[in-house]
């Protein structure tokens, strides 16, 4: 049993603070994804868990042990690096067995574990090659193999797929998911790709500027973003944000148009409050071309600026209250620039954020 606990973990480089006291509880066998924009401190956090970076403040526990002052080798974790970090002068077999050899395991055990890992990852044919003789995807697999042979308490991944092309990335994503199902272990996975986060995670940790913005399951984070940052970071294309003000039970947008306050939020807004209305492109569609039944419709006539047909759906750029907004059109219908259409907003899936703090007005 080994979960990972971060309590008030801080990291300073000299006077620069890059991680500001984060708290996180990762359960045994949980797959947690740290996601956030470049430079937000994801890698630093992961490297502190690994022991490759000193912890300035707070406490990290793996299982029951406080590991703050333990070197990486004593933490019983393994890590997959962005550039794979395979040992170039060793063949695949020796790369996989290196950790066991250092630990002084007998030859027979090493051979057996290497065979087992190679089988799980489909590397059995490649054991005698050197890393230079492998493709990107194969190197990736060797790096994962090296992580699993030692049967560690936790796997740490730092953007393991970012060096692969889009197709391979999709494949390897699925393999990582399968691997986690086969080799049940605690995983901390860093990425800036929100699709990887959504598809892999049991829980997503959204980070920004060294703070945790929200922790939750992919669906929680997607359906109930804690603030405008999470709302726009998770989901593609991003959620539209329209500034407005509460007036007589309605959200009056900056351009003068008004839409009703979503029913579930009616009790949580005060008259005159400055708000931001958040609505995903999927929830703005031309009437008759939406995702399905709309419980709380708000109709509004809009002019198409650009339409990008994507096959069964089109992405439509339009403007509401003078602000560019993306909408989705479902079904095989072609629209062109300048076309004026009635659109329907699905307000039951819209969000309201406090304009000042950016925090959601939903009960949390």
């Amino acid at each position, binding site marked *: 049993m080994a979960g990972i606990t971060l309590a008030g973990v801080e990291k300073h480089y000299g006077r620069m603070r890059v991680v500001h006291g984060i708290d996180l509880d990762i359960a045994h066998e949980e797959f947690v994804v740290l996601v956030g924009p470049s430079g937000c401190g994801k890698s630093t956090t992961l490297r502190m868990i*690994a*022991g*490759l970076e000193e912890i300035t403040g707070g406490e990290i526990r793996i299982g029951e042990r406080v590991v703050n002052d333990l*070197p*990486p*080798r004593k933490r019983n*974790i*393994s*890590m997959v*690096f*962005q*550039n794979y*970090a395979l*040992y*170039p*002068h060793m063949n695949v077999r020796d790369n996989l067995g*290196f*950790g066991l050899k*250092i*630990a002084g395991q007998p030859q027979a055990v090493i051979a057996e574990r290497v065979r087992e890992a190679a089988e799980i990852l489909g590397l059995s044919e490649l054991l005698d090659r050197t890393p230079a003789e492998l493709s990107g995807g194969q190197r990736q697999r060797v790096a994962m193999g*090296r992580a699993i042979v*030692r049967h560690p308490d936790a796997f740490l991944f730092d953007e393991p797929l970012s060096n692969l092309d889009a197709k391979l990335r999709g494949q390897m994503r699925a393999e990582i998911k399968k691997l986690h199902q086969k080799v049940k272990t605690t995983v901390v996975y860093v990425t800036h790709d929100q699709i990887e986060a959504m598809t892999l995670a049991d829980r997503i940790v959204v980070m920004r500027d060294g703070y945790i913005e929200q922790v939750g399951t992919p669906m929680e984070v997607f359906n109930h973003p804690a603030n405008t940052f999470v709302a726009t970071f998770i989901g593609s294309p991003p959620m539209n944000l329209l500034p407005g003000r509460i007036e007589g039970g309605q959200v009056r947008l900056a351009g003068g148009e008004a839409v009703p306050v979503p029913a579930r939020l009616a009790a949580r807004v005060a008259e005159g409050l400055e708000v931001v209305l958040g609505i995903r492109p999927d929830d703005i569609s031309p009437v008759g071309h939406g995702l399905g039944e709309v419980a709380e419709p708000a109709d509004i006539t809009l002019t198409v600026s650009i339409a990008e047909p994507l096959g069964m759906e089109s992405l439509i750029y339009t403007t509401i209250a003078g602000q560019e907004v993306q909408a989705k059109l479902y079904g095989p219908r072609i629209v062109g620039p300048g076309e004026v259409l009635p659109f329907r907003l699905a307000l039951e899936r819209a969000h309201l954020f406090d304009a000042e703090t950016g925090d959601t007005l939903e009960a949390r």
Partner: protein
Amino acid sequence: MQSVALWFATFLLMVIMSVPGLWVVLSAFRPNREILAKPPVWVPTELTLANFGKIFGFGSEQVGIPVTSYFMNSMIIALTSTVIALIIGMAGGYAFARYRFRFKGGIFLGLMLFRAVPGIALSLPIFMIWSRLGLIDAKMGLIIVYVSLNVPFTIWLIDGFFRQIPMSLSEAAQVDGCTRWQAFWKIEFPLARSGIAAAGVFAFLTSWNEFALASQLTRSTDSKTLPVGLMDFTAQFTIDWAGMCAMAVIIIIPALIMTFLVQKHLIAGLTFGGVKG
């Protein structure tokens, strides 16, 4: 057509470059009078081992030059100073490549600038200090000089090699269970080996061939090296060119052997920078 011209130009250049060396080697096997003949005898009429015989003390003619002592001195001084320069070079190169510390850029630049001072300009100060310390005519004196001449270069070269090795390799090894020290010896050292070999060859050749400082700091068979020993062939009115050439061949041979031994590493080492791992 163009390639023929290129080939010819290359050939010509090689000939120009190697003629003096070959002439020395050839002369080592010719009698002195033929070497000195006027007009010159281009095609040797007579080849002999007598010159080597003179040096090593067999045959009819002898020269009183303790070649064996010189050879041993040279070996001891060159090898010891190379080993020390490599150890310091590895430690320093690794530190410059891997750690941040204060005045790093300045120290590095200082080391390189030190290398820009011609060795001969240091001979007087070194001579004065060494004579106070009793290091004149001692192997240790030359070893210290050569170490300090070579260290900036070995640090610079080895630093470049460690820089090429991603930090994540050592980190991966540490996560895999290594101490920092083990990670160095098992991962980073083998990968930088070609660079270290290259640095070693350069350091060895520098020490092995150095003449200017050695001629100032050595006196007797206690410390005289082979290049200095060459001067023993000059008498007040004559120069024994044949003997000198034979001795030069003896000097060249270990250097050649050394270079061949590490040749594979050397080439990998010298081209390593251009290849992306």
